[in-house]
């Protein structure tokens, strides 16, 4: 007996149709006085300059050079943000309650949101596609070492992997290990080494 489910068919104009539909929706919302013609661009611009992985990178670099700051960052991420010269809003949308997990030679952390895509906007910006992908969300919970190896992170079997899932309103991210050979680097140079993936636990920091 055949299933009633028609299968994963896609129209040939899949993307042009979505592009036209979202443009239609946005233009109607502007006409009806719900948003303005600047609203969407204002929001997108905010993620280019105010909220983004450039903030997380500075926090990590500071933690690498200042042990007291690292203690504060691990104990209270939002309080640590207050000590930085950041734009206003580090405890704003999707950053109201943030926590960071520290990688060490014995413990490696990785974040996931199995129900959706919860993510700390002020420190990391918006989540990359792989984080939203059902395959990653399904597999990393159960076979994290294999998944990390697919990302290029090879961990010894003796390293404990901690997977941080987000079903309530805490937003997690990862404090990666400082790589060897960076002794003389300034905080700004260290910050430049960081990627969103390193601060999510699926990459190590490379010099």
């Amino acid at each position, binding site marked *: 007996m055949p299933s009633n489910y028609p299968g994963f068919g896609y129209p040939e104009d899949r993307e042009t149709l979505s592009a036209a539909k979202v443009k239609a929706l946005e233009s109607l919302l502007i006409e009806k006085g719900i948003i303005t013609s600047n*609203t969407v661009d204002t929001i997108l611009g905010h993620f280019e300059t105010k909220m983004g992985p450039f903030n997380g990178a500075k926090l990590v670099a500071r933690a690498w050079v200042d042990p007291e700051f690292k203690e504060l960052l691990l104990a209270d991420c939002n309080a640590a943000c207050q000590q930085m010269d950041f734009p206003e809003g580090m405890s704003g949308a999707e950053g109201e309650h943030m926590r960071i997990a520290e990688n060490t030679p014995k413990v490696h952390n990785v974040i996931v949101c199995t129900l959706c895509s919860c993510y700390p906007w002020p420190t990391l910006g918006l989540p990359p596609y792989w984080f939203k992908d059902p395959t990653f969300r399904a597999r990393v919970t159960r076979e994290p070492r294999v998944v990390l190896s697919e990302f290029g992170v090879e961990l010894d079997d003796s390293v404990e992997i901690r997977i941080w899932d987000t079903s309530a309103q805490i937003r997690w991210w990862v404090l990666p290990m400082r790589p060897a050979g960076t002794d003389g680097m300034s905080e700004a140079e260290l910050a430049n080494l960081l990627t969103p993936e390193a601060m999510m636990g699926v990459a190590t920091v490379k010099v």
Partner: protein
Amino acid sequence: MKLQHILGGLEGLDPVNFETEVFVEPWEQRIFGIHTAMMALSNHLSESLPDYKIEEVPTQFDSFWTWGHLRMGAEGMHPFEYFQLRYYEKWLGGISGFFVDEGYITQSELDERTALFLEDAAAEPPAPSEAATAIDTQVVKYLTEGDSPKRPSPATPKFAVGDQVRIKNIPSGEHTRLPGHIRGKMAEVVKVYEGAFTYFFPTSDGIGTPMPVYSLAFKPADIWDESLIDPKSVYYNDIFEVYIEAP
């Protein structure tokens, strides 16, 4: 419970697709922006901790819209359709459906306008209205000040660090924050978050009113059968108190 509630631990999947872009098509940025604007203009912000004068913002939007409302749409989908569609395709379907259902726009308006842009991709949206600035000021204020769910704790937390607890198995209803793969499983409380957390609206499975949230640690052998288990791993999740019971 639907398949989209029980993603954790699914077997037989492909290697991870390591796509690091946030948006894989330019149109996706627009629907992200529309959703974020809806959160920033939601009428429930009059009761938020930051001082939002939301009733004075000159928008015609007068609805309650949070992440929970967006997710209700995704959780309401046919499970196979959920996996067929890309992340922002689900958003586009859910959000445009919401504006039609709530009477802000009609389906025929949307279809006609879509057809217009399909015909002429260069056609421009209308010019901004007079009230433009005040709406966008509120949007930036929301991004900056957020909408903290933290409230004073109405009662002492039922559980303490070190307690063994069992996750309840409550019907999901139309929206849940309880993933399928931990239902009925044992865990250890490793942190009791300070204060209590609202979910802004009540769900049929019991969250909404401010309640404690716990960081729970699960041993892999307690949540998975043997295949694919990584014995040197610990799975953590932050869970609302109503989902937990004494073993």
